[in-house]
């Protein structure tokens, strides 16, 4: 691992100043579960780390507000997953957290850092011998002719088909989450749906966040759709694995009829993937198994298989359908 210097920031403004002034090699450090892992692989090689864990302003979370749920970027995944109000009123948000990683990692990982978790593409993580436009822009993409079983069927480009691996961001996308960030030029708010970018020709640029911008908090508008929601995650093994396909789904029903639906896909796309057409198609429908399956097909419309991942198009459609039927039980 390349040597780096480490310093603990004792204030938000000081942390931002330090990262801003430090140049490209200076990075924020929160839980470290992604960054330190990738540093061990040589995929990340920062020169300076500015530890923001001691900043009290980003640590808490409050799910009791009348208008929005507020999650500090430094809150730990395990603490938020277990919040009784979230478990009862927004099961999809809680499930997206406890179905991710292991309890050890959830005790370490921050909510803000989790949003920025980088892809598990083996050619990205594998380093040197493999071409990867995300790791070394312009070097090519080993996945396109390689083993692409876990790669994206939605949102990919010639340059990159790496899957966005996170779960929490997918659930937040379904609930219209907003991310508050601060940088050297002040603060701004980014809709979760606009935080992550499709790779296009610049897969190395993964988010709309500036290098020296820090996530402060995540806000979710209070909504009656929370209770009839689920994060349905299908994996190679039952627990502690990344999604082959997942769906965050939320419903507002009137009797048997859907009045409003939210659907976001995980594990299938290069970014958290909101399926708005599929949502619209459900409104006014009776939520039968057939209607749920039709919504699943609509959510995967436009999916493009590679060599080994075509099965995940069918799997994705079924995951959405199952998720809708699970959510309906929770009305």
């Amino acid at each position, binding site marked *: *691992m390349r*040597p*780096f*210097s*480490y*310093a*603990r*920031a*004792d*204030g938000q403004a*000081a942390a931002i*100043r*330090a990262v801003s*002034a*430090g140049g490209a090699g200076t990075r924020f*450090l929160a839980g*470290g*579960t992604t960054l*330190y*892992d990738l*540093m*061990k*692989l040589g995929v990340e090689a920062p020169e*300076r*780390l*500015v*530890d923001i*864990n*001691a900043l009290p302003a980003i640590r808490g979370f409050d799910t009791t507000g009348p208008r929005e749920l507020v999650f500090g970027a430094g809150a730990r995944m*395990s603490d938020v997953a277990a919040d009784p109000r979230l478990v009862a009123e927004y099961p999809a948000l809680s499930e997206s957290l*406890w179905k991710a*990683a*292991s*309890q*050890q*990692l959830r*005790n*370490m990982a921050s909510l803000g850092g989790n949003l920025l978790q980088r892809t598990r593409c083996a050619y990205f993580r594998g380093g040197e011998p493999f071409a990867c436009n995300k790791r070394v822009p312009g070097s090519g993409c080993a996945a396109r002719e390689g083993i692409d079983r876990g790669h994206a069927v939605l949102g990919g480009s010639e340059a990159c088909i790496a899957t966005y691996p996170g779960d929490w961001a997918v659930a937040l996308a379904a609930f219209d989450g907003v991310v508050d960030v601060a940088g050297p030029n002040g603060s701004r708010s980014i809709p979760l749906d606009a935080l992550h970018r499709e790779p296009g020709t610049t897969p190395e640029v993964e988010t709309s966040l500036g290098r020296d911008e820090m996530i402060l908090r995540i806000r979710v508008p209070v909504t009656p759709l929370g209770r009839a929601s689920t994060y349905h995650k299908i994996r190679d093994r*039952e*627990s*502690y694995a990344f999604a082959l396909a997942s769906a965050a789904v939320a419903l507002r029903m009137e009797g048997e009829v859907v009045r409003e639906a939210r659907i976001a896909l995980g594990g299938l796309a290069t970014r958290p993937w909101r399926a708005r057409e599929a949502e619209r198609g459900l409104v006014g429908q009776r939520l039968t198994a057939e209607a749920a399956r039709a919504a699943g097909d609509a959510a995967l419309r436009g999916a493009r298989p590679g060599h080994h991942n075509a099965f995940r198009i069918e799997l994705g459609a079924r995951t959405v359908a199952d998720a809708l039927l699970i959510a309906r039980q929770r009305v």
Partner: protein
Amino acid sequence: MDEMPHERGDIPVSRRGLVIGATLAGVPLVRSDAAAQGAATRGSVPGSLEVSLTVNGEARRLVLDPRASLLDTLREGLALTGAKKGCDHGQCGACTVHLDGRRVASCLTLAVQADGRAVTTIEGIAPAEGDLHPMQQAFIDHDALQCGYCTPGQIMAAIACVQEGHASNPDEIREYMSGNLCRCGAYAGILAAIQDAAPKMRVG
């Protein structure tokens, strides 16, 4: 806050994070107590950091390369070799220890981030010399290991699993123990051991 802020260049750092250290090329990532004392008084190499930890109830002072993981620090700096290095990437759970009472993957924890905090390892859980923690005894009673390499991590995770209130039924135990892999496949014994130990731990 018990830390006085200091300025070093443009990065404010806490007092304990003040940069000091030794200057030899190829120094080990971790230097423990006696060496730390010397380094602290001599001052020196940019990059190394002085860190204070409480490990199994004992205050320890170390001079660390920031790259050092908590796992390597425990094993190589403090000769506590109970926590094991399996994958070194947070995927297997063999390195599980408790940090301020919560289970973490020590291989993915920068040791400098444990500054000022309390670490408990498998060496620190027995109530007294010669006795075993109820979870250790249960692992023996239920044959919950074969080769034993994953066992310290399994036991540290299992104790936390019970303390968190995540051991109320087999499915919940399986879910909340999924971060600890056992290549020998002793899972049935591990599950039985946790079910056995949980009520004994609650009794205290």
